[in-house]
C-alpha cells in the first residue's frame, strides 16, 4: 500500500469527456412552466404599459370631478401636453408627445437592470439557461462582460433616480386625500395610490444596490455601526425582493388602470369617508 510519502501528485485536468446523456436536460418535471409564466406576465405588462404610455389621455382626474388622482405612469407630468391641473406645472413646454415617455425611462431602466428581473428575463426570454440543469439555448456565452450587458452595472444610478420618483408618487398619494371642493377624505383612488407608493418603496428599499450602499459595502460592521443598522434593516426586505418586484409591477399597472377608468368616466371613484 502506498504511503503518503510515496504518493505522486496526480495531474489536474479540467477538460475531458463528460458523463451522462448528451441531451439538453434529463429533467422530467415541468421545468418549462416557470419561464413560460414569467414571460407571459412580463410580456402582458410591457404590452399594457406601452399602450398606456402612448394613448396620452385619461391619466388625470382633477378638480371638476372633485378628485386629484394622477396615474403613476404620467407623474410627474412634465410636458407641454399635460392636461391642466395635473401637477407639477409645465416644465418642458415644447414636449408635445405623451409625457409618460419622459418619465417611464426611469422605472424602465431601473427594472431592466434590476438583479431580480435580470434573472427573470435571462431565464424566460433569453433562455440562458431556461431553468437549472436545462441547457443554455445559445452556442456561445460571455455573460455580462461585454457591451451591451456590461451596462447592467449602471443599476445604482437608476436606483437613485427611482427614489426621486418614489418621493413624487408619495406626494401624489398624500394630495389625493384632499378632494377639491369637498375637503379631506378617503376615496378608493387615494387608497390605490397609497398602496402603489408603499409597494414601490418596498421594491426600491429591498434593492440589492440599496443593501450594498446602506452597509453591505463595508469590510467591518463593527467599525460602521450606523451603516450596520441600515444594512440590518434592509436585509430582510432584500430577501423578499422578488415578491416586491412582482407585486409592485402588477400593482402599478392596476393603479394606472384604475385612474384611467375613473378619468374616462367608466367608473366613479367611491368616497369611503
Amino acid at each position, binding site marked *: 500500500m502506498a504511503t503518503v510519502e510515496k504518493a505522486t501528485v496526480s495531474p489536474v485536468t479540467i477538460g475531458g469527456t463528460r458523463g*451522462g446523456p448528451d441531451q439538453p436536460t434529463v429533467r422530467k418535471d415541468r421545468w418549462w412552466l416557470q419561464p413560460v*409564466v414569467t414571460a407571459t406576465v412580463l410580456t402582458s405588462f410591457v404590452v399594457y404599459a406601452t399602450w398606456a404610455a402612448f394613448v396620452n389621455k385619461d391619466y388625470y382626474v382633477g378638480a371638476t370631478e372633485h378628485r386629484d388622482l394622477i396615474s403613476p405612469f404620467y407623474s410627474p407630468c412634465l410636458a407641454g401636453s399635460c392636461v391642466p391641473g395635473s401637477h407639477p406645472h409645465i416644465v418642458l413646454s415644447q414636449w408635445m408627445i405623451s409625457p409618460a415617455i419622459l418619465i417611464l425611462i426611469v422605472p424602465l431602466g431601473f427594472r431592466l437592470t434590476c438583479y431580480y428581473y435580470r434573472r427573470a428575463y435571462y431565464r424566460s426570454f433569453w433562455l440562458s439557461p431556461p431553468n437549472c440543469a436545462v441547457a443554455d439555448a445559445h452556442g456561445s456565452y460571455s455573460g455580462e462582460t461585454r457591451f451591451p450587458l456590461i451596462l447592467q452595472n449602471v443599476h445604482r444610478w437608476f436606483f437613485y433616480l427611482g427614489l426621486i420618483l418614489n418621493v413624487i408618487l408619495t406626494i401624489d398619494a398624500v394630495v389625493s386625500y384632499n378632494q377639491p371642493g369637498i375637503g379631506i377624505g378617503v376615496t378608493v383612488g387615494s387608497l390605490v395610490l397609497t398602496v402603489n407608493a408603499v409597494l414601490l418603496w418596498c421594491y426600491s428599499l429591498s434593492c440589492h444596490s440599496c443593501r450594498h450602499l446602506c452597509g453591505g459595502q463595508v469590510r467591518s460592521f463593527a467599525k460602521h455601526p450606523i451603516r450596520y443598522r441600515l444594512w440590518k434593516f434592509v436585509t430582510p426586505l432584500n430577501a423578499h425582493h422578488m*415578491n416586491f418586484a412582482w407585486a409592485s409591477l402588477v400593482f402599478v399597472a392596476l393603479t394606472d388602470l384604475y385612474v384611467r377608468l375613473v378619468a374616462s368616466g367608466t367608473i366613479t371613484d367611491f368616497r369611503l369617508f
Partner: protein
Amino acid sequence: MTTEPAALASEPETATAPVADTTDSTVTLQVWRGDPDGGAFAEYSLPANEGEVVLDVVHRLQAGPAPDLACRWNCKAGKCGSCSAEINGRPRLMCMTRVDELPPGPITVAPMRTFPIIRDLVTDVSFNFAMAKLVPAFSPPPPPAEGYRMQQIDVERGQEFRKCIECFMCQDVCHVIRDHEENKPAYAGPRFFIRIAELEMHPLDTNDRRDLVRQQMGLGMCNITKCCTEVCPEHIKITDNAIIPMKERVVDADFDPVGWLGRKILRRSKTSPTETAAISAYPGPSPSAPAG
C-alpha cells in the same frame, strides 16, 4: 397580489401523494454506467425499503446486481460533499435524497455533467481545485501588541460561507461552464465567489480582490440566474449574499462615475490605503492539457 404567482416559484420535486408504505413495492433506478469511452443508463429494479435514500439503493446495487458500480461517498449525512450526482436531472446529494420524496417511476442517477467522467457516477472534480489556487490566501496585517480582535457581528457575517461542504453541485449546475466548456479556464464559479466574498467581508484581510475576481475569475460571466443557490445543500444564499455583493464591489471600483470623479479630485486610488490589490500569480488552469 403579494407573491410571485405560485407557478413561478421553483417546483419542489415531490410526489403529490408520498408512498406511505413502500415495503411491497419496487424501486427502479436508471444509473449511468460508463467511462470516457462512452456509456448508457442501465436499469435496475429492487424491492423498495421504507425511508431509504438514493445512496442506500446504490449501495444495495453494489451489494447485488452491480458489484462494479463506481460511486463516491463518505459520510451519508450530507456533510462530506462526496456523493453529488444528478438525480432525475437535478444536482443533488444521493445521501440526502429520499426515494419516497421523488415522483413515482424510474429514478435517473447520472454523474455530474460539468466535470470529466472517470467511471459511472464518479467524476474528476480537479477543475475546482485548480480554481481554488486562484484565490489569494487570507492576509491579515501583523498582529498588534494586544493580539487580533474581531467583533461578533463581523465573525457572524462570514459564517454562512464557511458552511460550504465542497460538493461542487453549484459549479456543476452553473450554465457558464456546464453549457460552455470553453469558459472553464476563465471562470472560477460560484463556490469560489463565496470564498472571495468571505475574504472581502473579513475586517482583518488586507487584499483587494476586486480586479482579480473581475479579470481572472470571471465574475462578469455570471448572469445571476441563481441555479447555484437553488442546488446548494447547505442553503447558502450564494447569489444574494456573495455574488451580487461582489458585483456591487466591482461597480464601486470600476463602474461608478461619481466614485471615480471623487477619487480623481481627492487623488485617491480605488484600493484603500490599508489594502493591496491582489492579482493571482497562478496563471489559471489550461483547458485541455493537465495543468499541474
